[in-house]
């Protein structure tokens, strides 16, 4: 048993209740999800299928011409198992119209453009489908800032944003999602051979244990080092959390008037819903 373990049945009950209530408070009954073939979007799709019935969940496959074909195959397997309808939208044309014309070579920039193209399609199809876009970023990614702002970081609701990667896996097992989807190395699949852990330079298993202490348990970095964690790794992760804060908050608005959006105009999103 891991210190990160959650009670998956309880988590699923809570998240199904959350999804139903927050979607209905937007006066909607349906959702769209970008299905990557990875474990995060598989868990979100499974939770949504429970919450709304599979027929109300649209899984959208958004491959680019260099995407690993296994990703789409895995996404389709997840959709078949859950019984949710899917839509395929190849983003190569729209992405290359910009990337090639502008000669963008930098892998990070290209990755961000792909993520934002996917966002454009998800939000457009959400109108056709009359559903909310449900996000698939987990807590590890959110805290490490491992996402594209306004790309995969754009959504109306996120049921798994308070679950570390370890906990997402646990819930995925509980939901009996395909073993291949759970077992494969996490990847944003933005360029060939990319894996999260290679790009980050550390393993989620280590990051999760450090983040659990830094964030949830309010340990200091010194306390973590005293407990035996690698000083350099702790420092890097703590720094990532700080430098990615901009991705986790709304944009900064200059306050000029007597009452400003984002400062002292204080209402929840669920205002009178």
């Amino acid at each position, binding site marked *: 048993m891991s210190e990160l*373990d959650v009670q998956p049945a*309880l988590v699923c009950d*809570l998240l199904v*209740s*959350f999804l139903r209530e927050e979607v209905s408070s937007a006066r909607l009954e349906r959702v769209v999800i970008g299905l990557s073939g990875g474990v995060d979007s598989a868990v979100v799709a499974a939770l949504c299928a429970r919450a709304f019935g599979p027929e109300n969940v649209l899984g959208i496959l958004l491959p680019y011409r260099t995407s690993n074909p296994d990703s789409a195959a895995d996404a389709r397997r997840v959709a078949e198992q859950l019984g949710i309808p899917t839509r395929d939208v190849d983003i190569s044309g729209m992405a290359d119209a910009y990337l090639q014309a502008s000669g963008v070579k930098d892998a990070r920039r290209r990755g961000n453009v792909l993520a934002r193209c996917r966002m454009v399609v998800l939000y457009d199809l959400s109108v056709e489908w009359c559903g909310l876009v449900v996000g698939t970023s987990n807590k590890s990614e959110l805290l490490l800032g491992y996402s594209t702002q306004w790309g995969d970081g754009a959504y109306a609701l996120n049921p798994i944003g308070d679950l570390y990667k370890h906990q997402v896996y646990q819930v995925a097992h509980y939901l009996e999602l395909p073993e291949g989807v759970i077992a494969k190395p996490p990847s944003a699949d933005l360029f060939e051979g990319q894996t999260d852990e290679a790009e980050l330079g550390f393993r989620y298993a280590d990051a999760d244990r450090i983040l659990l202490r830094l964030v949830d348990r309010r340990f200091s970095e010194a306390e973590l080092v005293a407990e035996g964690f690698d000083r350099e790794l702790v420092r890097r992760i703590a720094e990532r959390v700080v430098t990615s804060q901009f991705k986790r908050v709304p944009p900064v608005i200059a306050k000029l008037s007597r009452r400003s959006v984002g400062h002292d105009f204080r209402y*929840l999103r*669920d*205002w*009178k819903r």
Partner: protein
Amino acid sequence: MSAYNARMDCRLAVAQTNPVLGDLRANLGDHLQRIEACAGRADLILFPELSLTGYFLRDQVEDVALRPDDELLRPLLEASKRISIAFGFVERSPEGRSYNALGFLEDGRFLGVHRKVHLVSYGLFDEERDFAAGERFAVVESRHGRFGPLLCEDLWHVPSAYTHFLNEADALLVASASPARGVEAPGPGLASQRTWSILLSASALLYRTWVGFASRVGWEDGIGFGGESRILDPYANPRAAVEGIEPGLAQARIDSATLRRARSEVPLRRDEKPWILAAELARHVPLLSALRAEHALQHE
């Protein structure tokens, strides 16, 4: 008046509700429906904290604050001629302060208003920005018994329930809007609700009292509320409960005969020595006042 002599025989209902944030009319309708559903079968119905308004009000506090004589409350006052009602609302005082309050209605009038004393301003909470704090714990003398109203965090501070204990309340009425948090294994259940269970049971045992706990459910911007409303007897046995995080109702008969037996068996109130605490407070409070004054000077 001593609770030992008083005759209480009250059919208590605790309502587990999911208020719509900031929509007084929708919530009033929900209250009336639930009251109607148990009228004739209950003598007193307890609703959760801020049951008429929803919890994370922020700038909506101004919009939903009501004076006790507000016309909007008329249907509730009318209903209280048939069943006593304890409900959560934002009370607007004549000076313009807003209180997180629990109103107690009976026979068409306000029998009492408990203003939350221990506002929470840590973690998820920012109540001290939006509300003024109450200053006392007063027992409500109802035709159905002597009730000690408390709002959520109040129960975490020992003097709150202790004051009701000294004043010989028959039952604590705890209204709550408590976030559902802590899903770590092995559980079982939510850590937040396990904590409440301990607090409520300890209160029943330490004060040898009935405890009614009305706890809201639902979600506000991704913050879930934990539910698990219940009624405990003075031995801390659950007499009725709403399981889980759906709206519902729990009902049980709470009586003075059980109280008398429990208090004869373990006469904690009889044997309590409040003068020891009084002597300690006499030592501490002047010191605290001096410290506070000094602190204020330093920060001038």
